[in-house]
């Protein structure tokens, strides 16, 4: 074996990827050739150093962002698959139980009334002061949302909070109100959509349906508007009819939103 062939095989020898026969020939050459031996040793040390270079770890935001993307895609899939109709069936099955739960819902209804009042009073560019005022009046936001949603944390963290809240089997009043608040005020379309998505499981609650209905006139994203309309249809929220009629006649509204509102009126 000459020096050139030996040199060509050095990286594979350092990686133990050479077959035994060739490796033996290269080693034999290295044993008798100080120049090649020195070259091999320096390449081997460089590879070792490269492999030992610590791998950077991504921040937790990456996970939240990617999981948010996956959830958004799932939402799109579900909508395409007629998700709304299955939710409507679920809402129907729960309708019978609604009045039995009325005493439990009274506090939530009160909170919702205040949220709705906040919506009516607030303009689209609600100031932090208005938000703080609304928060103090509602007085039901849990630490979860206090910490992540209302204190300007990164979008990924807010999304993570909303997704976590959506996974709760029996979310309490604070969580439900926090989700409604996110749906109403969050600056990220992704967060608002996921908050709405999380609220689907609680479409049988009056406070949730009223919250979605109150948010619809304030919503600026056609994507979220259409999702809200689907929600209201799925939940058979007849009180939405006037707002839906307004949207149909609103020439400024996105054409898909107007079409969704028109179909919703027919379905309701």
């Amino acid at each position, binding site marked *: 074996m000459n020096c050139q062939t030996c040199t060509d095989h050095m990286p594979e020898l350092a990686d133990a990827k050479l077959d035994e026969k060739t490796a033996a020939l290269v080693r034999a050459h290295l044993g008798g050739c100080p120049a090649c031996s020195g070259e091999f040793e320096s390449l081997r040390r460089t590879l070792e150093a490269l492999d030992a270079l*610590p791998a950077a770890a991504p921040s937790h935001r*990456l996970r939240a962002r990617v999981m948010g993307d996956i959830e958004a*895609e799932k939402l799109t899939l579900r909508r395409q698959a007629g998700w709304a109709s299955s939710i409507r069936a679920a809402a129907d099955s729960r309708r019978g139980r609604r009045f039995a739960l009325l005493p439990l819902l009274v506090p939530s209804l009160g909170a919702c009334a205040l949220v709705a009042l906040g919506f009516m009073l607030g303009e689209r560019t609600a100031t932090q002061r208005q938000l703080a005022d609304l928060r103090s009046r509602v007085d039901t936001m849990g630490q979860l949302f206090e910490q992540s949603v209302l204190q300007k944390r990164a979008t990924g963290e807010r999304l993570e909070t909303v997704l976590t809240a959506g996974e709760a089997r029996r979310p309490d009043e604070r969580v439900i109100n926090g989700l409604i608040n996110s749906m109403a005020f969050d600056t990220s379309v992704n967060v608002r959509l996921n908050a709405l998505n999380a609220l689907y499981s609680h479409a049988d609650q009056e406070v949730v349906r009223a919250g979605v209905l109150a948010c619809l006139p304030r919503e600026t994203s056609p994507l979220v508007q259409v999702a809200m309309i689907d929600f209201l249809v799925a939940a058979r929220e007849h009180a939405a009819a006037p707002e839906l009629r307004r949207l149909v006649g609103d020439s400024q509204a996105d054409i898909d939103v107007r079409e969704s509102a028109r179909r919703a009126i027919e379905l309701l």
Partner: protein
Amino acid sequence: MLAVRDGDLDCMGELFERHHGPLFGYVSKLTGDRTAAEDITQIVFQRMLKYRHTYRDQGSFTAWMYHLARRCTCDHFRKASPAPVAVDPSELESHADESRGADESAASKDDHALLHRALSRLDSGDREVLLLSRLQELSFAEIAGILECSVGAARVRAHRALRSLRDQYHRLQKEPLT
């Protein structure tokens, strides 16, 4: 990935958990920019979702993923603005180097810093092929597929890149401290 392609998006979460670490590490070393590496890694997974219907059960998923990563990295550098990017000071803490403790030897840190600098001095193509060749999951045949060249050419380029890195590394070790 086949399950994801067929509509089971829950499996996408599993793919993320399994592959995002090595992928991020690769892109991070390739770009030398942690923030850009996070953005690119996210875009890779976004593209997996978007183009899942195009995934074919030919070759390995890993090779397909790094093929996407290569394109995303190219797109990133094409679009990259030369203007400085504002960073939220509240997020700086999480950008701190958490990979090594204070008790680690300074010499080791210096070696790593030198190697990072040596890597950054390589031609981007050399850096790419060298880092791909150090990923245990990829064979040279797969690397050749990613780089769209022959297996022999991929091997030769990786060897040449290793020698360039070695030369840069040695040169930096001999440079006086500034």
